[in-house]
């Protein structure tokens, strides 16, 4: 098998599918109306899911984060699941009742102190025996910043500059203990050997600190770094710092182009392709037959875009109360406000910052031409989340093609229904992947870095021998 794959990387018949679950904790993709839906805040749900995924030999369980409760026109958005825990706290609790699965916390570089966050992540990493990951995200908007000491201080175009300096400082803190820093016994003259722990100092306009790490490296060296940004700045940050990218490029052709772009960037930083795993987000909807899967996908989509959500969606564009309009009736006949959209409130994608009135005019034409109700139009114009829909066998075949042609290394699954959509994946899809030789049949390592088959971090102090096993 030497034929080149479309990604330029050689076809790999032994490539493995790496799986994580990304649990965002808020948002319309989570269906809460189904009677089978578990509580989205109870600790039992998280314990059940983490242990389920461990049974399914997943690489990682991943929590999202948002630092302000989402709003629609000045009021708390009330239609979606909301109210999530602090990720590092929740994962530290889960570390005590799991043994192998990676535990990844989404944490923001704009509204955290670098030494404080690095320390909390390092603590999770040690307590979990080297299973911690950090999904690095940035924010720039002042609306979120209003919850923090330095609200709204960072210009949009500098958010990745801050993130890069922040991650640099964190990495240096994590590598600042010499492997033999700690005394072997109580007979030695001091707990930490003199000179074995380096102080880290930064003094720029974006990152200022003077700190010494309070813990040594974990068995995996340092937390595994995930990055999801898809802009040029985000891709550069990933190529420079990330161990795993969590991209939105899930369609095969997009995944191929993304992989080629990222591997080229990696080379510029002197990194090998094997030092970065590409795990795009994916939704999975399984059925025992293709028809059943399609029907389920339609149901999920309808639940995700319910009639009240269709009205709330238009309210953001019209910038006024539309609750008197029938979602099954025609578009509002009143005129929208002239103001552009504000995507900072967490319910709109950032590219919709401009062009609101033109968009509304286009929708009106489309609704008139096709005789669409509010609900029908909103379902039509809202891009569907990329979902793999089919039988377990169909999805397994598709995923095997993705990984063997090196378009991706696996997927970060976004569940729509907790826990049943994940139970289906563990019980049905995982065995199909195993049959194809594309998925582990047991954990072969203990750390997240080992699960992902990533090289040891460079520039680090290596694994502290005290913590093995």
């Amino acid at each position, binding site marked *: 098998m030497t034929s080149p794959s479309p990604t330029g990387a050689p076809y790999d018949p032994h490539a493995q599918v790496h799986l994580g679950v990304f649990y965002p904790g808020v948002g319309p993709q989570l269906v809460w109306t189904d009677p089978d839906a578990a509580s989205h805040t109870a600790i039992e749900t998280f314990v059940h899911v983490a242990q389920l995924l461990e049974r399914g030999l997943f690489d990682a369980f991943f929590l999202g984060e948002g630092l302000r409760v989402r709003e629609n026109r000045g009021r708390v958005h009330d239609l979606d699941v*909301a109210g999530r825990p602090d990720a590092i706290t929740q994962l530290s609790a889960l570390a005590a009742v799991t043994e192998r699965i990676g535990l990844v916390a989404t944490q923001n570089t704009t509204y955290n102190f670098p030494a404080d966050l690095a320390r909390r992540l390092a603590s999770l990493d040690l307590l979990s025996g080297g299973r911690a990951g950090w999904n690095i995200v940035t924010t720039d908007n002042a609306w979120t910043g209003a919850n923090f000491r330095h609200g709204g201080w960072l210009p949009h175009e500098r958010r990745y500059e801050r993130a890069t300096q922040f991650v640099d400082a964190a990495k240096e803190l994590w590598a600042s203990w010499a492997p033999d820093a700690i005394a072997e016994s109580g007979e030695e003259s001091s*707990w930490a050997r003199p000179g074995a722990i380096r102080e880290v100092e930064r003094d720029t306009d974006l990152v200022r600190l003077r700190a010494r790490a309070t813990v040594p490296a974990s068995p995996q060296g340092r937390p595994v770094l995930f990055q999801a940004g898809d802009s040029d700045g985000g891709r550069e940050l990933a190529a420079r710092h990330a161990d795993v990218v969590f991209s939105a490029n899930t369609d095969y052709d997009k995944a191929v182009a993304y992989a080629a772009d990222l591997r080229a960037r990696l080379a510029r930083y002197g990194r090998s392709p094997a030092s970065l795993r590409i795990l795009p987000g994916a939704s999975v909807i399984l059925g025992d037959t293709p028809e059943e899967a399609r029907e389920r996908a339609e149901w999920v989509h309808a639940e995700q875009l319910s009639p009240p*959500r269709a009205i709330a969606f238009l309210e953001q564009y019209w910038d006024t109360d539309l609750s008197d309009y029938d979602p099954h009736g025609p578009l509002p006949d009143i005129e929208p406000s002239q103001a552009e959209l504000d995507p900072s409130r967490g319910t709109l994608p950032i590219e919709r910052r401009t062009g609101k009135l033109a968009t509304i005019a286009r929708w009106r034409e489309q609704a008139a031409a096709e005789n669409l109700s509010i609900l029908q139009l909103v379902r039509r114009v809202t891009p569907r989340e990329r979902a793999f829909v089919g039988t377990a066998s169909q999805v397994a075949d598709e995923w095997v093609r993705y990984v063997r042609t090196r378009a991706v290394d696996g997927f970060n699954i976004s569940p729509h229904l907790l826990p049943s959509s994940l139970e289906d994946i563990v019980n049905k899809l995982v065995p199909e992947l195993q049959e194809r030789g594309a998925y582990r049949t047991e954990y072969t390592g203990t750390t997240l870095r080992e699960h992902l088959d990533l090289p040891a971090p460079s520039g680090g102090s290596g694994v502290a021998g*005290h913590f093995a096993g």
Partner: protein
Amino acid sequence: MTDRRLLLAIDLDGDGAHPAAWRHSGHPPAHTLTAAALRRVVTEAEAAGFALATFADTPLPAGPAPDDAGRLEAGTRAAFAALLTSGIGLAPTLHATTTEPFHLATQLASLDHASKGRAAWVVGAAAGDDALATIGAQALTEEDARREAADVVEVARLLWDSWEDDAVIKDAATGRYLDSDRVHHVNYTGTSFTVSGPLITPRPPQGQVVVLAPAGLELDASADVVLVSETDAGALARPAQQARDAGAALAFAEIEVALDAAEPAARRLAALDAATPWPDSGRLRYAGPAAGLVELLRSLPPAVDGVRLHPAVLAADLPVLAGEVLPALAAAGLHAPPVPGATLRTTLGLPRPANRFAAVASATA
């Protein structure tokens, strides 16, 4: 509190309160930073029947002083203990001065959810140059540090109430997951920061996480428990009463203990002090047989409502506390272990506070 009972807390930081504890703990020093060590000490404290475990912390690192040991961040330690225990309260020290107040409130609310209502917070207010340098800031005066701690306690309490208990309604008929009238902005303006809110986490199971504050922070009116340090047992009553008069529900005495174990306490202390003398921390200190500590503890109520014990060496003193001291206090009717599944407020005899935003809403309705 007029009934004769004594609430028992224990600090589980590192190898113990004596600076040389790491030399006499019977394991390699690095072991203290492992999950196995934390799991063991937390489950021992729960089995012993303590009402509350605290986890001391500072943002400062190991070294350069000979006894400066490494330390896992306290919030993650307490969270790790949440699912390993079912009755004991869990109180990390979090420093108001070196963290984001919003994150701090979220972390504690999350600890309360994960532990089903057993979270508490020992308010820290690190003010020194090295501590503040970790966030790129300058040292604070003691007065500024106290003011900052007061502000952070106040905003944390507002944020814990920012979701009413019944805010999540899951009304399938209207498609509303939550009632936005029951999720509130807090719009807090402190001296050095502002917070809009609401919290990203629903209201903690206890309503309000239990707040413990050292008396020196002068948070008597906003803390649930004030921690009183006096080197003389007879001097505890006055500051404890002052704290309660100012509004604190409970006053606990801070007590350092070294007990007769395999070796007599005096010989153990001499060996420890030979490595590094135990500095005077301003706390009451007891060294001797378990029976003497039982006598001392029996004499404390009702002057104080509880104690926080700081064992010199956890590996040596915790087994004696578990095997001799707590059983004797229980036999004397002074102490009962927490009921599994009870919230910390229930264990401490504190009411679950009404939500201040709900009170406003019903008053204006």
